[in-house]
């Protein structure tokens, strides 16, 4: 019996099998990649798609920056420097409301087709086209009339932008074109319009707004003007004209309004692009470095479908065409995406790598292990709890660099207790940011205000820690020792030491807080519907200007989600938007941020850092606040 199940023999066979499995090669993936000139990059997540006008995520943008290039390029070591991209040079007019970009004549797509200003016109047309439904289209709204076109404001375009129209837009705009959100007509949406009673019709029309009505509904208003409420100031004959124009448009099958919208884009010749803006934008060149401003290949997109089709095969391996230093080579879902050198790139001679492989490793611990086992050159993020060990054991790999982001806590300012700015300020005073950054948000910097350091922008550094003052302020607000305040919930999508620390902060003031954990989707939904008390949150800027942090705290902005708004704050933002002197503009924005911190609908905790691991043989990679390392300058020198 014992001979049949000889343990030593089994062990021998097993170890031989393992030896066979492991093989004999000892060269790591990084070693091989160094020989081949391929950079191995940890990139956090699988991209949703590689159609740059549809995606919005950071992992996607990393890959898109290898496949495409905008008008202005990224500098390898200076965030503020504007390197030439497709444009060789550019200049604004006197008040910074019009920018002219001169495109390089030798620019080509990765299939050899010349790249001209017409491609940019097509790209921005597609990005703004209401039927494409590009979530990031608002990045282009500073172009003259772009917002009206993107939001399909038919009345505005067909009547308001027509200089011959009898009633000027200033008066006409009071009309309910975009629908009244306070009216609920959900029960009527799927019913046959002709079967509705008079007041049901009235309710549906008011909820939808003139811009969203179909021919049948518009004709009903022509027949019975009482179905729609007009502002007094709009004369009856104009009312009829408005409806007639909208009706003609609807009956024609709602054709594209791009031409009629008179959008501030023109191409006087194939290598010149002129962008006219609705207000001065001194940072426009910096903004064009964002993927939303990159060109897309008209000739390829139209080969695979209509301009507005979202899911065609143009952006897949074999079909994808870009204008960046690299082109799409391989795409293994959830495994890796590989890009290879683009021979048609205008600066191909100076591209340092033969290719880049992006690995969508979401688990940061797995990514760290992969890096240390020689499978990656650079990682997306290092888990903060590994920071200390890495500092001790692998200091040669560790990188900690400032990043344009802020960790903060969002207050629902419509909740009793939290509606008092003194209470919110008191809570802020009770947050010991130094300690938090030392022990929990390791590597992050204690926030001094909401917007992290961006170039020359210097908002007042108001945040500080003073528990005694916090208690006094809370007492002044009528809640001494937290008495009289209800128990709040602290919403979060993941439990971590940061949440515990916040809970303790509230406890120090005598305020009861219960942690409420929700899955990611519900967490986001709860905030967007103001269905929370206090929430852990964060924000990453899109470009190097404080407006990427400040614009969101305005009334009705979908990212505000605090219930707070202030006419004074918004007046300052508008004043800054009209200001064409860059220094004066930043000063006004700093003043606005001061107001924001006074009202404190959000409580900033820490400024982001990028913590990651990076191999020393990767050259041409410098700390950048926006973290957009231009791939073409990266080289491998083992």
């Amino acid at each position, binding site marked *: 019996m014992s001979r049949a199940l000889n343990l030593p023999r089994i062990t021998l066979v097993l170890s031989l099998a393992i030896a066979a*499995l*492991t093989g004999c090669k000892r060269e790591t*993936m990084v070693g091989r990649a160094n020989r081949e000139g391929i950079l191995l990059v940890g990139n956090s997540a699988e991209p949703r*798609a590689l159609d740059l006008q549809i995606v919005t995520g950071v992992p996607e943008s990393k890959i898109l920056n290898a496949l495409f290039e905008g008008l202005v390029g990224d500098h390898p070591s200076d965030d503020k420097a504007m390197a030439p991209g497709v444009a060789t040079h550019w200049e604004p007019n006197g008040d910074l409301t019009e920018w002219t970009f001169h495109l390089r004549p030798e620019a080509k797509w990765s299939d050899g087709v010349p790249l001209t200003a017409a491609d940019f016109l097509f790209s921005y047309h597609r990005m703004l086209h209401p039927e494409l439904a590009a*979530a990031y289209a608002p990045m282009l709204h500073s172009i003259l009339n772009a917002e009206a076109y993107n939001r399909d404001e038919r009345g505005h375009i067909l009547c308001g932008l027509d200089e011959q129209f009898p009633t000027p837009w200033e008066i006409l705009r009071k009309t309910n074109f975009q629908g009244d959100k306070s009216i609920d007509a959900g029960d009527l949406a799927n019913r046959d319009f002709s079967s509705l009673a008079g007041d049901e019709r009235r309710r549906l029309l008011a909820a939808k707004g003139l811009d969203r009505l179909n021919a049948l509904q518009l004709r009903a208003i022509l027949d019975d003007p009482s179905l729609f409420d007009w502002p007094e100031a709009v004369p009856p004959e104009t009312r009829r004209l408005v409806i007639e124009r909208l009706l003609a448009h609807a009956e024609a099958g709602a054709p594209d309004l791009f031409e009629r919208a008179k959008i501030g884009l023109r191409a006087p010749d194939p290598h010149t692009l002129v962008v006219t803006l609705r207000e001065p934008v001194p940072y426009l060149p910096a903004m064009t470095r964002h993927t939303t401003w990159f060109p897309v290949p008209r000739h390829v997109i139209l080969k695979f479908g209509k301009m507005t089709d979202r*899911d065609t095969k143009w952006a897949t391996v074999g079909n994808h065409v870009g204008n960046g230093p690299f082109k799409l080579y391989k795409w293994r879902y959830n*495994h890796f995406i590989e890009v290879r050198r683009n021979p048609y790139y205008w600066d191909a001679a100076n591209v340092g790598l033969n290719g880049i492989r992006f690995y969508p490793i979401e688990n940061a611990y797995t990514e760290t292990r992969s890096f240390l086992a020689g*499978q990656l050159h650079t990682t997306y993020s290092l888990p903060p709890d590994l920071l200390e060990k890495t500092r001790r054991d692998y200091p040669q790999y560790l990188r900690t660099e400032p990043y344009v982001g802020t960790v903060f806590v969002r207050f629902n300012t419509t909740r009793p207790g939290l509606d008092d700015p003194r209470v919110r300020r008191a809570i802020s005073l009770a947050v010991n940011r130094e300690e938090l950054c030392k022990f929990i948000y390791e590597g992050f910097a204690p926030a001094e205000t909401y917007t992290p350091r961006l170039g020359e922008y210097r908002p007042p550094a108001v945040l500080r820690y003073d528990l005694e003052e916090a208690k006094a302020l809370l007492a002044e607000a009528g809640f001494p020792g937290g008495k009289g305040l209800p128990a709040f919930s602290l919403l979060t999508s993941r439990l971590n030491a940061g949440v515990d620390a916040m809970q303790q902060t509230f406890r120090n003031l005598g305020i009861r807080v219960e942690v409420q954990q929700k899955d990611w*989707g519900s967490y986001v939904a709860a905030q967007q519907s103001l269905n929370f008390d206090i929430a852990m949150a964060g924000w990453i800027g899109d470009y190097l200007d404080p407006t990427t942090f400040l614009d969101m705290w305005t009334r009705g902005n979908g990212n505000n989600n605090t219930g707070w708004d202030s006419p004074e704050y918004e007046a300052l933002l508008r004043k800054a938007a009209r200001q064409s002197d860059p220094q004066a503009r930043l000063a006004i924005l700093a003043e606005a941020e001061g107001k924001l911190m006074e009202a404190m609908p959000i409580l900033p905790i820490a400024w982001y850092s990028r913590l990651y691991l990076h191999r020393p043989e990767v050259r041409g990679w410098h700390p950048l606040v926006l973290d957009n390392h231009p791939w073409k300058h990266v080289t491998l020198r083992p």
Partner: protein
Amino acid sequence: MWREIANRLMQGLLVLFVLGTLTFFLVHALPYGPFQDEKAIPDNVRERLEQIHGYDKPLLTQYWLRLNNIVRGDLGTSIKVMEGREVSDILLQAFPVSLTLGLFAMAIAISIGIPAGVLAAIRKNRAPDYIIMAVALLGICLPNFVIGPLLAEFFGGRLGWFPVSGWDPRSPSAMFLPALTLGLVSAAYLSRLTRAGMLEILHQDFIRTARAKGQKGHIIIIRHALRGGLIPSIAFLGPAFAGTISGSVVVESIFQIPGIGRLFIKAIETGDETLIMGPVLLYGTLIVTANFLVDLIQLWLNPRLRARAAA
């Protein structure tokens, strides 16, 4: 017997229909949907997206349309996670990975679990039994998110024998650690089930008779005892296999494997209904089929069941 089989098949289809219907309505009852992002999506964009994906229609209409499409074999395209890609395409890429991993894991589980269980049964209440059962209990108790990183750290990191992450269909060495992690738990269960099954059989009269005839020990075990002793293990194998394939989410994350599990979780997090439905129906089909096959194997192994089915 054929009627029994046809009956089982009809039951399977009914299970899939109920599963699909429940999934559809549960996904639509989620407090969030696919047209929501961390950064707010402008209203006009969201409305247009709803229109593109038919979300502006009444729910029952949507259900009816989806049901029709699925019956015709059209699973639709992903709404969010891999927008625009055919769900069947995605599954075709990801399923072979999960399947290979699952098969490899089961092979490991069987080649460790069954011999260990047999050995423990033969050496009942002696050192090998205690050691094997203690290790097995440990294997059942230790979750794979502990075993996985430990194996990766030691065999991948320290010894450098295997890659610590990634997947290469041509290289079994990349599959070894994840397959081992997944297989160890099943191996532990299998060894306990095999031990119990073998012990029961080894006490039966026909074994004593064989022994009395002077039959050699290992022949008794292999030829007589194993066939009966493995019945509990076989019954476990079907669901375990399906469970291994569908339950590899954690292992897929630890070892960065492009299987279905991670996709499925992402689809749930974003409310991507089509990409949830695809794996649900696939897993459903898999489990129904696995159970069906196990029934057949048991009919073949167990003469009593065969007689009952024939009657």
